């Protein structure tokens, strides 16, 4: 089976994000990582491959040149191949999905496609489901448990309040990972050495038939949210502090 993991490169979770010209962020000093949910996607792809000898895992990433680092990381974790869809423009979720679908569709033998349930930069939580619609295959998102018996996949996804939906679907299918699906492995030294020798396949955005002008969702502007004013620590013995806290919550904050 040809297994895919679509990964996005995003700023490190610790990075402070500054706005550059109203619509983009200042990329100077930003450390880039694979979006955390996409790490779960890569890990699950590798686990599936290990259970199905002869399978291959291909990591796919759309973005500017810097995203090759994210693909190298996926290769070092154990992916067999990597595809870079070269795109410096800002695509909306629909166009991103269409470009990814173009790459995957070229492979007649694609099986399970893993993605994250959302990318932690735009937080759109759409591309995985749009990709599945584009490929006319089933999908499940926010997946915590995945099992595959060749022709069918069985997943459990979280739907709030600790409840889960159990879903059965035919392979090929899209599975979008939630935290808890697995624990992503670290790249081994050997993996890193091996990854260096693999050539990342490049696909120009134009080849996919997608371009920025087709975006339906346009970013008008970025802004910084209002800062919360510094709060206060309530002094006194625990019993007194607690009494005062409850009074403040009722009378000042009016939340009780």
């Amino acid at each position, binding site marked *: 089976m040809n297994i895919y993991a679509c990964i996005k490169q995003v700023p490190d*979770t610790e990075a402070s*994000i500054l*706005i550059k010209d109203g619509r983009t962020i200042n990329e100077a000093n930003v450390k880039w990582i694979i979006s*955390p*949910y996409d790490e779960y996607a890569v890990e699950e792809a590798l686990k599936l491959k290990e259970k199905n000898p002869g399978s291959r895992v291909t990591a796919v990433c759309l973005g500017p040149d810097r995203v090759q680092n994210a693909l190298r990381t996926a290769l070092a974790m154990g992916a067999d191949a990597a595809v870079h869809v070269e795109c410096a423009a800002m695509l*909306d979720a629909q166009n991103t999905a269409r470009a990814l679908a173009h790459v995957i569709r070229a492979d007649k033998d694609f099986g399970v496609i893993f993605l994250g*349930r959302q990318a*932690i930069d735009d*937080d*759109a*939580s*759409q591309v*995985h*489901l*749009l990709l*599945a*619609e*584009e490929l006319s*295959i*089933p*999908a499940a998102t*926010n997946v915590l448990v995945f099992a595959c018996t060749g022709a069918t996949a069985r997943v*459990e996804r*979280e*739907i*709030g309040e*600790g*409840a*889960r*939906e*159990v*879903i*059965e*679907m*035919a392979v090929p299918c899209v599975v979008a990972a*939630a*935290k*808890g699906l697995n624990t992503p492995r670290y790249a081994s030294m050997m993996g890193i050495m091996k990854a260096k020798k693999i050539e990342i396949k490049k696909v120009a955005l134009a080849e996919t038939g997608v371009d920025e002008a087709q975006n*339906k*969702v*346009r*970013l*008008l*502007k*970025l*802004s910084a*949210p209002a800062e*919360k004013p*510094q*709060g*206060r*620590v309530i002094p006194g013995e*625990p*019993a007194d502090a607690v009494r005062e*806290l*409850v009074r403040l*919550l009722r009378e000042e*904050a009016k*939340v*009780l």
Partner: protein
Amino acid sequence: MANIGLYMELKDGVFKKSNRELLSLARKGGHDVQAVIFCSDVQPYLEELKGIQAVIQVTGADLSYQPDRFARTLASVIETFQLDVFCGIYSAQGKDLFPRLAAKVKAGLVSDCLAVDLGARTAVKPVYSGKLLAEYQIEGERALFTVRPNVIPIDPPAGSAPEIKTAAMDNGETQSRITEVIKGASQKVDLTEAEIIVSGGRAMKAKENFAVLEDLAKVLNAGVGASRAAVDSGFASSDMQVGQTGKVVNPKLYIACGISGAIQHFVGMKTSKVIVAVNKDPEAPIFKKADYGIVGDLFTVVPLLKEEVKRTLA
């Protein structure tokens, strides 16, 4: 003026609170508003739907949630009733349904909106885990939005009863099948829609100790959350995790107990209206982010707090 459609979510037949938020948003601005609701009897919900033009009742032999069927049915409702703008809740179901629907009606979607201008088709949503806000505009024939729960103030329903229209459920083939819904332990409160959340961190030390938080949560009718450290240590289940790789929550009151306040936790709860921190370290970063703080041992403070709340609310 636009034709606005709203997807009303039911949970075991109960009208979700966030539906009222959507209705409050849509009633403003003089649009034609139609609410879509999958149910065999629409009467119980008519009071809530006062002041909008119509309710589109979707009926069928099997109304249980299957994403393919719901997406196809809604796509045909959108076509038939010519809805130009269609909104839902950014809930577990909304996250599953709306992107599929967007693909089917070939419309742009902005998810997790904090504010939506239905006429201009613009919306503001948090990006970079809430570190920035982004304003988007949707172009094309139709526009879809999902709105974050607990953000839009609720106006009580007023006005005349809506006209009742009907549509049929698409019970055709599905590509995937929900074969079972496993209920969570006890009736937990859904954190993403909870009004009050009590959360515990690494300081809880053991799974059993979460009972201390649950006791407080019971008197507050609150949900119980956790930091990643508490989840990774096995004290709490992963569906309880609040933060960047857990849930983004938006309650009116968030009480963080024995949580240091790491950025990845903070981004998951920073939009809470009021944040309270209980931590024994006066230097803990959480105190810089909390509206009110108590420096002390949570195992002393939380039980006292429970008693005090019980007394005041009695």
